[in-house]
């Protein structure tokens, strides 16, 4: 085995070192931008979907329900394939990166909408009434009173969504986005050190997610200043 073979050990270290830069490049150029862009788009979609779900207008409710059900009921990989290969086959060609952005945004939108809906519903009715009493409109009430409080409640579950998203972006490799995992695949195809590269890329995902969980902790502290703990 490699741990009692100095030559092999040296080759491993060499490969690990030389592949680090391309892997990080994949993370910085694709994995992280893809995660951030889709998370922001997804959140906007999620808030709209959540508002549609709690609105009193039936058609809005139904559109939101069907959307969430369809996305949650089908595999992400299948959705990406439909967007990229499926639509491509009938002449609607979308580049890999935009296709991934659309696919992941739709996904985050559906899952996060349930988080945000629950967070909005967790705000006591008295808050809506107090806002109404001082004369706020519906949108003022949402912006000034409900969403700021709902944000605090949603930080832990939304952090989960985001961390999940960062890892899920590895699926974009299947529609030819050269993000971090696809880089690892490409390098492994070249030097056959499959275990080494996939372990290396796993550790990199882990580090990224660990750093994100630290950010989550800081966000939670910041928003907790107005509640007694």
């Amino acid at each position, binding site marked *: 085995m490699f741990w009692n073979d100095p030559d092999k050990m040296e080759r491993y270290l060499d490969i690990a070192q030389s592949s680090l830069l391309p892997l990080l490049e994949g993370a910085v150029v694709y994995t992280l931008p893809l995660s951030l862009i889709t998370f922001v788009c997804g959140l906007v979609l999620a808030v709209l979907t959540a508002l549609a779900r709690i609105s009193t207008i039936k058609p809005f409710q139904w559109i939101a329900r069907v959307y969430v059900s369809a996305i949650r009921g089908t595999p992400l990989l299948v959705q990406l394939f439909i967007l990229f290969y499926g639509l491509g086959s009938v002449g609607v060609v979308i580049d890999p990166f935009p296709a991934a952005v659309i696919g992941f945004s739709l996904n985050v939108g559906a899952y996060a909408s349930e988080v945000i809906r629950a967070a909005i519903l967790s705000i*006591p009715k*008295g*808050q809506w*009434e*107090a806002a*109404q*009493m*001082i*004369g*706020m409109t519906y949108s*003022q009430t949402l912006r*000034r*009173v409900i969403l*700021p*409080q709902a944000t*605090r409640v949603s930080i832990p579950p939304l952090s989960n969504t985001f961390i999940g998203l960062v890892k899920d972006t590895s699926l974009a490799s299947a529609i030819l986005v050269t993000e971090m995992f696809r880089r690892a695949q490409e390098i492994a195809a070249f030097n056959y050190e499959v275990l080494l590269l996939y372990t290396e890329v796993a550790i990199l995902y882990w580090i990224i997610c660990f750093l994100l969980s630290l950010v989550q902790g800081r966000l939670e502290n910041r928003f907790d*200043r*107005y*509640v*007694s703990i």
Partner: protein
Amino acid sequence: MIKINGLHKRFGDLEVLKGIDLEINQGKVVVVIGPSGSGKTTLLRCLNILEVPSAGSITIDGQTTDFSKPVPKKEVDIFRRKSAMVFQHYNLFPHMTALQNVMEGPMIVQRKSKEEARQQAEQLLTTVGLGDKLDYYPHQLSGGQQQRVGIARALALEPKVMLFDEPTSALDPELVGEVLQVMKNLAGTGITMIVVTHEMRFANDVASEVIFMDQGKIIERSQPSEMFTNPKEERTRQFLNLIQ
């Protein structure tokens, strides 16, 4: 000042207000008492349209709104500005400081400048004895202090009528006094007040008039001295016996 005509409120099959007629003059302090489920809180909430009455009309400060047909949103907004409510559970905005809570209405709804809203809020909070707690968040304040912020927040809207929905019911006994004191001071300023409460001492000392409600109707209304010593109606007598 306030004129209520044939006010009804139904929740599904349940009729909570069964035809309320009431007239209240400018500057009066009217205390509404009655058993739970008598409709007194609903009556108060109808005056701020937190509940939309099912039928009847209300006139406040010269503006009459008829609830037997749907009321346009614009009219609701104008109508609502005539009154401001102090809630049983304060309902302060927990993510805003005391000062921000009081500034919110004037700044966001009435579009006053930040400076003007701040000055007014500081002054109001000082009036209710919280001049040194401007930057405290609600959770850092006691129940009595929170309710006083609630009163300042309502006053900041410069309403014609102040509505108090059991303002001391959620408070520890030792904190009730400070809130009642603020309300007493307010009663001397000429603002019209409608207070739903179980504080009979307050009613006796401050009210210009006491109204007894039961089962969605006004059973009796009179001066506090009259109401508490010599009630005319049997049901009023029973209720007062129970709580005294």
